[in-house]
């Protein structure tokens, strides 16, 4: 069966897209080609077509913490948020440090979302994320893991980081490293700066992230092995990345929409909904990150979707866990940056689809013949307010609750199959 998306907006022009057998056949200017007989036509007038996003950093909480999220609800939020693929981190209970856990995750995804979004588990770097013994990475790769990370439990030992990178390199698995010096960050609740000083809250300095990023960069250069820096939050880390890239180091990096939109002042009033790891930093950091994603110093955007139940965020900053949900809102938030002329539509394709696909070796759609027919239609004028009635994730721990967002994913196809 052939599908035709007519009159869709794509990078400022109007296009028709032909899809057959799960792949793109052509994308041509509207009216340029006659429609084949018997094809299903979708009129996308007024809507923008974008490649399905790939989120290289999510926490879906299954197995073990299904009260926060499970693979079914997480993939539902992903689908409605415009994500065709998500890479789920290993800090589940038990930790994804064995093939059995990876296979369980993949089974859950296949059962609940046979048409996608696709789930790509990330292997724990070390057993139990303890930072001591390497996890069986070959077994984990064979079971379906596409990268390695100790996310949530930053690796203190440069020696362990080195061995994970080396062992992973043989398997063509890249380390996604959560960079945070554990001593400089001991007991932290937020960014260490003017706001933490006035609130009387223990902070962590931005240099704690940059110090570990620089460690990884130096190991990467020395070993000639690529490394990926997770959720960059600090301008200083951006400077390290720029220096490394200029030297030809094979380092890639990600950041999240919230670091492009918020700063430490979101914590004022002890707002636990703004507590996240790494923490929201200063406006200068935010501006540096905006430039870095624009210039490609930071390669990709991720959500770091980290659901928590409502009661867990109801308390003091000392008690509340770190993290925001993101899958439902990330594309709308990024579209907001396009509306504000900070990014472009083409930047969105690069940051959310092409570069994550390239870095982690996942299929992605550039609307060229033969590409996977993974795309969504965005209503650029739609406005909506994140809240319990509009979010698909089980949890609603986001600082963007109640914001008026512009742009919403209206329809989504994965491998040519319409999800909604």
């Amino acid at each position, binding site marked *: 069966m052939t599908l035709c998306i007519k009159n869709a907006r794509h990078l400022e022009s109007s296009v028709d897209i032909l899809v057959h057998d799960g792949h793109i056949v052509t994308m041509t200017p509207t009216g340029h080609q006659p429609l084949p007989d018997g094809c299903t036509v979708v009129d996308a007038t007024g809507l923008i077509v974008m490649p399905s996003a790939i989120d290289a950093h999510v926490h879906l909480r299954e197995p073990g913490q299904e009260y926060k999220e499970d693979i079914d609800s997480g993939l539902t939020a992903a689908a409605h948020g415009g994500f065709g693929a998500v890479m789920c981190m290993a800090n589940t209970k038990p930790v994804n440090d064995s093939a059995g856990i990876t296979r369980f995750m993949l089974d859950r995804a296949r059962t609940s979302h046979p048409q996608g979004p696709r789930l790509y588990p990330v292997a724990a770097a070390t057993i139990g994320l303890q930072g001591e013994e390497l996890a069986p990475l070959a077994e984990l790769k064979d079971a379906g893991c596409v990268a390695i990370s100790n996310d949530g439990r930053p690796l203190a030992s440069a020696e362990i980081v080195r061995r994970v990178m080396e062992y992973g390199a043989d398997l063509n698995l890249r380390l996604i490293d959560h960079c945070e010096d554990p001593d400089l960050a001991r007991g932290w609740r937020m960014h260490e*700066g*003017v706001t933490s*000083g006035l609130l*009387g809250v223990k902070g962590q300095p931005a240099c704690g992230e940059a110090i570990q990023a620089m460690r990884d960069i130096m190991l990467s250069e020395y070993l000639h092995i690529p490394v990926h820096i997770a959720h960059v939050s600090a301008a200083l880390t951006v400077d390290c990345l720029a220096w490394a890239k200029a030297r030809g180091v094979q380092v890639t990096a990600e950041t999240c929409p919230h670091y492009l939109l918020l700063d430490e002042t979101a914590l004022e009033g002890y707002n636990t909904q703004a507590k996240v790891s790494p923490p929201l930093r200063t406006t200068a950091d935010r501006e540096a990150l905006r430039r870095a994603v624009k210039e490609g110093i930071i390669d990709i955007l991720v959500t770091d979707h980290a659901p928590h139940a409502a009661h867990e965020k109801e*308390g003091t*900053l*000392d008690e509340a866990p770190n993290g925001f949900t993101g899958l439902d809102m990330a594309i709308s938030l990024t579209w907001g940056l396009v509306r504000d002329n900070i990014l472009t539509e083409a930047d969105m394709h690069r940051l959310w689809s092409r570069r994550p696909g390239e870095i982690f070796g996942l299929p992605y759609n550039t609307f060229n013949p033969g590409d996977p027919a993974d795309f969504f239609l965005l209503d650029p004028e739609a406005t909506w307010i994140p809240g319990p009635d509009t979010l698909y994730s089980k949890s609603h721990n986001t600082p963007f609750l109640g914001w008026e967002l512009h742009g919403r994913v209206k329809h989504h196809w994965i491998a040519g199959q319409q999800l909604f």
Partner: protein
Amino acid sequence: MTNDTAYQWRHKDLLDVTQLETTDTLHLLDVAASFQEINNRPVKKVPTLKGKTVVLFFVENSTRTKTSFDVAGKRLSADTFALAKTGSSINKGESLKDTGLTLQAMSPDIIVIRHPSSGAAQFLADLLPCSIVNGGDGWHAHPTQALLDCYTLRQTWNGQFANRTLLILGDIAHSRVARSNMHLLHMLGVKLRMCAPRTLLPAGIDHWPVEVESDLATAVRDVDAVMCLRLQLERQQAGLLPDLAEYSRRYCLGRQHLRLAKPGVKILHPGPMNRGLEISNDIADDPACLVLNQVAAGVATRMAILYLLATRGNGGHA
């Protein structure tokens, strides 16, 4: 009491001094001065808050603040109840939200909370309709201490705060007393200086309206008063200090420092004092040391706070 009849206390809670205007502060201190007289009577009790309930919810150890609130409440004839961490449901893992809702269900008029987490008082104030008094939250704020310090200094300085300089000495980083005093005394026009080793200074202090000086002999020069802070012994264990003897050598306020200050310099300390560590033994016993005045001021100030909160929106009548 103030003659300003237009003035109306409008605050449901007292969470930090940053919520107060100068007029609020001076009014509160006036009310406190009027209650001070009750504390000197043979029968130290008035019926002002009869039938009002004050819960003392102290999740962190405290002797003087808790006792001070208890005495303040009782002298105004309020019923005061203490709830401590030990032996309570907090030890059984109950959340602050649930403890707060449980207390509210008993219809208190005021809850005084002392809690190790910064922001805990704000959390309860947002959650509960009754009045919340912050009796100290983490490193954040201790508004009643700042107000009683302000009361003490106002008496000492005959109401003149302008052109006065106060030195706050010690562990500023972890001190709610320092933060609240900084805000309040700055608002009243006092010039502030802070002195501590850099490991005990908070992030962003360069944005505070204070002069920072790491050398005590320099910092104390020409000040009108010195506020010593208590050094928590765990700061040394956390690696912020080499050892207590070295701390004492550099930062213990002694007679030799006072000679560099203005004549008539006064010493304050929120207590409990570590004699010989942050304040020398003879200074602690010197008439210039106002620690006991602070304790007396604490009762009067807390009476004023309970009174203003309990009678708010009531034309000032209980």
